[in-house]
C-alpha cells in the first residue's frame, strides 16, 4: 500500500479562475414558471419551445430524485439556491474580436483560440448560459455543415431541429433531463449533410464562470447518411465554495452508414455536480463512439448510451474516470440492441485516489427476437490507496440463442513495492503514481485522437501531483 495521502486540494488550477460577473440577463435565484417565461422571453423562443419548457418543468417537479439507487449526495442540491440563466446576449459572435474582453481572455487562458487555429474545423465557446462565440471554417461550412448554438439552431433550422429534438432522450427520461428540457440554453446544434466527411473535429467548450449557477446546455447532432463527424467537448469551472450544477442533455442521431465520434474531456472543479444525460441513435450500419474522460467534479453521474436501431449498427463507449479525494465518479454506459447483427463494445477504466470513489454502472440489453448481436464489456478499476473505493454494477440482459456477450472485470492496486521500484529509478512518488496510472489507461488512450491523449496524460499528471503530500 502506498503511504497515506494527505487531504490536499487537487491542483488543477488551469481552470480555476473567474472574472467578475457582468451579465445583462439574470433569471435570478430559484426555479418557477416565471423563470421559464423569463428565459423564453430573452431567447425569443417560438411558442412550441415555450410550451415544451413548461411541460418539462411539470415533469421535473413530478419526478423523484433517483436516490433509491444513486448517491444520497444528490440531496445536497438545493434547486431553490441555483441561478438558472445568466447571459450578456443570445447571439454568438463569429469572430473572437467581437467577444467581450473578459470572456475572450477566459478562453485564451484555456487555449481555445490556439487549438482552433491548430487542428479544429470549428469552435463553439459557451460562457455560463449562452454561446459567446461560434465559428466554422469556411470550407466546412461550404459543404453544408451546420454548427451553431442550440438557440440559433432551433430558430434558423427548425425543419431539422424539431424533427429530432427530444426524440433520442425524452423529457421524462429522468429528473435531470426534465430539468434540462425546462431551462436549456446553449449547447451545439450540428447537421452534417449526406456523404460529407468532416476531416477535422468540431469542438465546443463549456465554461462556467458564475457562482451558484446551473449550466444546462442542450446539444443535438444529426449526421446524415454516410457522413462522418468527430465532436469534442471540454469543460471547466472555477473552484467556488458553493455547489455548481452542470446538467446537460446530448442527443446524437447517426443515420444510415454515418459515423459519429463524440469525445469529452471534463475537468470540473470539486464543487460541481455533473449530472448529464447522453444518448445516441444508430441507424443501419451506423457507428457511434463515445470517448468519455471524467476528471474532477464532486459527483458525476453519466452513462452515455447508444440505441442500436438499425441492422449492423455499432456502438462503443470508451471511458476513463478519475476520482480524487472526496469525489465520486458514477459513470458507465448503456447499449440497447434493437436490431439484428448489432454490436457494442464498452471499455471502462476507473482510478480511485484517496477517499475517491468510482462506480461503474452498465446496461446492456439484447431482446430475445434478435439474431447475431454481440456485446463486449470490460471494466477495470485501479485503487491507489487503502481507503479508495470502487463498485461495479453491470446489468447485462441477453436473451435468445444467437447472441453473444462477453464481460470481464478487474480490480488492481498500485502496490508500495511497485512505487518503491520506480522511486529507486529516480522518480518521485507523484511521478511514479502518475506513470502507473498512465500505464493503466494506456491501451485505451492509444485509441483516442492524439491531441486528446496528450491533454489527458497532462491532466492525470497534474491530478497525481496534487494528490501526493
Amino acid at each position, binding site marked *: 500500500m502506498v*503511504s497515506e495521502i494527505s487531504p490536499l486540494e487537487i491542483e488543477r488550477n488551469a481552470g480555476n479562475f473567474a472574472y467578475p460577473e457582468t451579465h445583462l440577463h439574470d433569471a435570478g435565484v430559484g426555479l418557477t414558471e416565471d423563470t421559464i417565461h423569463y428565459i423564453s422571453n430573452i431567447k425569443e423562443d417560438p411558442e412550441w419551445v415555450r410550451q415544451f419548457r413548461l411541460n418539462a418543468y411539470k415533469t421535473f417537479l413530478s419526478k423523484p430524485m433517483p436516490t433509491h439507487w444513486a448517491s444520497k449526495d444528490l440531496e445536497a442540491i438545493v434547486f431553490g439556491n441555483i441561478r438558472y440563466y445568466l447571459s450578456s446576449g443570445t447571439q454568438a459572435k463569429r469572430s473572437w474580436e467581437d467577444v467581450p474582453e473578459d470572456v475572450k481572455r477566459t478562453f485564451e487562458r484555456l487555449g481555445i483560440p490556439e487549438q482552433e487555429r491548430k487542428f479544429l474545423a470549428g469552435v463553439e465557446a459557451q460562457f455560463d448560459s449562452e454561446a459567446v462565440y461560434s465559428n466554422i471554417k469556411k470550407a466546412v461550412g461550404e459543404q453544408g455543415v451546420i454548427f451553431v448554438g442550440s438557440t440559433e439552431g432551433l430558430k434558423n433550422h427548425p425543419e431539422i431541429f424539431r424533427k429530432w429534438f427530444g426524440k433520442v432522450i425524452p423529457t421524462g427520461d429522468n429528473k435531470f433531463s426534465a430539468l434540462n428540457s425546462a431551462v436549456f440554453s446553449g449547447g451545439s446544434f450540428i447537421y452534417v449533410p449526406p456523404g460529407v466527411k468532416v476531416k477535422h473535429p468540431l469542438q465546443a467548450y463549456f465554461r462556467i464562470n458564475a457562482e451558484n449557477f446551473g449550466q444546462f446546455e442542450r446539444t443535438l447532432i444529426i449526421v446524415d447518411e454516410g457522413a462522418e463527424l468527430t465532436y469534442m467537448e471540454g469543460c471547466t469551472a472555477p473552484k467556488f465554495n458553493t455547489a455548481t450544477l452542470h446538467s446537460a442533455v446530448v442527443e446524437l442521431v447517426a443515420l444510415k452508414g454515418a459515423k459519429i465520434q463524440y469525445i469529452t474531456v471534463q475537468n470540473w472543479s470539486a464543487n460541481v455536480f455533473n449530472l448529464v444525460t447522453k444518448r445516441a441513435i444508430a441507424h443501419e450500419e451506423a457507428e457511434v463512439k463515445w470517448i468519455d474522460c471524467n476528471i474532477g467534479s464532486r459527483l458525476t453521474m453519466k452513462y452515455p448510451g447508444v440505441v442500436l436501431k438499425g441492422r449492423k449498427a455499432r456502438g462503443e463507449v470508451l471511458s476513463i474516470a478519475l476520482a480524487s479525494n472526496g469525489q465520486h465518479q458514477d459513470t458507465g454506459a448503456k447499449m440497447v440492441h434493437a436490431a439484428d447483427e448489432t454490436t457494442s463494445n464498452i471499455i471502462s477504466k476507473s482510478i480511485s485516489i484517496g477517499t475517491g470513489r468510482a462506480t461503474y454502472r452498465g446496461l446492456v440489453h439484447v431482446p430475445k427476437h434478435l439474431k447475431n448481436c454481440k456485446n463486449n464489456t470490460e471494466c477495470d478499476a485501479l485503487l491507489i490507496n487503502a481507503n479508495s473505493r470502487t463498485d461495479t454494477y453491470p446489468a447485462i440482459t441477453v436473451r435468445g440463442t444467437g447472441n453473444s456477450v462477453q464481460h470481464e472485470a478487474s480490480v*488492481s492496486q498500485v*502496490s*508500495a*513495492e*511497485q512505487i*518503491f*521500484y*520506480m*522511486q*529507486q*529509478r*529516480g*522518480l*518521485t*512518488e507523484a*511521478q*511514479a503514481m502518475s*506513470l*502507473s496510472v*498512465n*500505464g*493503466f*489507461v*494506456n*491501451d485505451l488512450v492509444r485509441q483516442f485522437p492524439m491531441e486528446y491523449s496528450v491533454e489527458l496524460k497532462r491532466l492525470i499528471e497534474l491530478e497525481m501531483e496534487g494528490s501526493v503530500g
Partner: protein
Amino acid sequence: MNELAIKDLRATIAEQEIIRGLSLAVPKGEIHAIMGPNGSGKSTLAKVLAGHPDYKVTAGSVMMDGQDVLALPPDERARQGMFMAFQYPNEIPGVTIANFLRAALQARLPEGEELEATDYYAKLYEKMDLLEMDRSFTSRSVNEGFSGGEKKRNEILQLAMLEPKYAVLDETDSGLDIDALKIVANGVNSLRGPNLGVLLITHYQRLLDYIVPDHVHVMVQGRIAMSGDKNLALELEEKGYDWVRDDLAEPAIA
C-alpha cells in the same frame, strides 16, 4: 572520499534487527562481492541502501562520496547515483521499458530541460546491443510477463542507461540459466570502470566465475564475518558456509 562507505550500520524490520553493526567500504572502480548463507541479511542490506520504507536504520552511517545517503528519500538517492538491481523486479503494467527509462532519465534533468529523443534512443539501442537484446524488447511493458532471465537483463539495461555511481546487485544471478548468466555478466563487465563501484550480492560462487570481484566479503548474522580476495569465494565453495560460522564462533575473528 570516492567510495560507498558503510559504518557500524544497524537496521531493523518490524522491530527485528537484521543488520547488526555492519561496516564496509566500496571504492569507486571496484567490484565487491558479498556472499553469505540464506538469512544472513544480504538482501536487507541492499534494501536499506536503496531506502526501502519498511526498514528502519537504528544506528550507523552510509556515505556516498562523502554525502550522507540515509538522510535522502529513495528517489533522491537514486538520482544522486545509487542504483539497486532488484532480486524480484516489479511489473509496471502498460508502461513500456522505453517510456519508463525515459521518465527516469527525465527525472534527473533540471526543471524545464527536456530529454533529447534522438540521443536517448541512440543510447538505448547501443546499450541494448551490448546486452544482446532485441529492439522490440523496449516496447514491452516493464517486467510484465517476463521470464526470470528477461527481468534480470532489464535490470542490467537500466543500470547501463542510468549510469549510477554505485550499483547494488541483489542476487542478480538467481533464476538464470547459464546462457542468461553469461549475458548478464558480460553486461556488468562492460560497465566496469573507474566511475562505477559495484556491490555484488550473491549466494553462489558461480556468478563470480564470470564477474571476477576485487574483494569478497562473507556476511553472517548481519555483519561482515570475513573478507578476502576472489580466492575466498572458491574456499567458501569448497568448505561451505558452516566453515565461516564455526570460525566466527572463535573469539579471535575480527
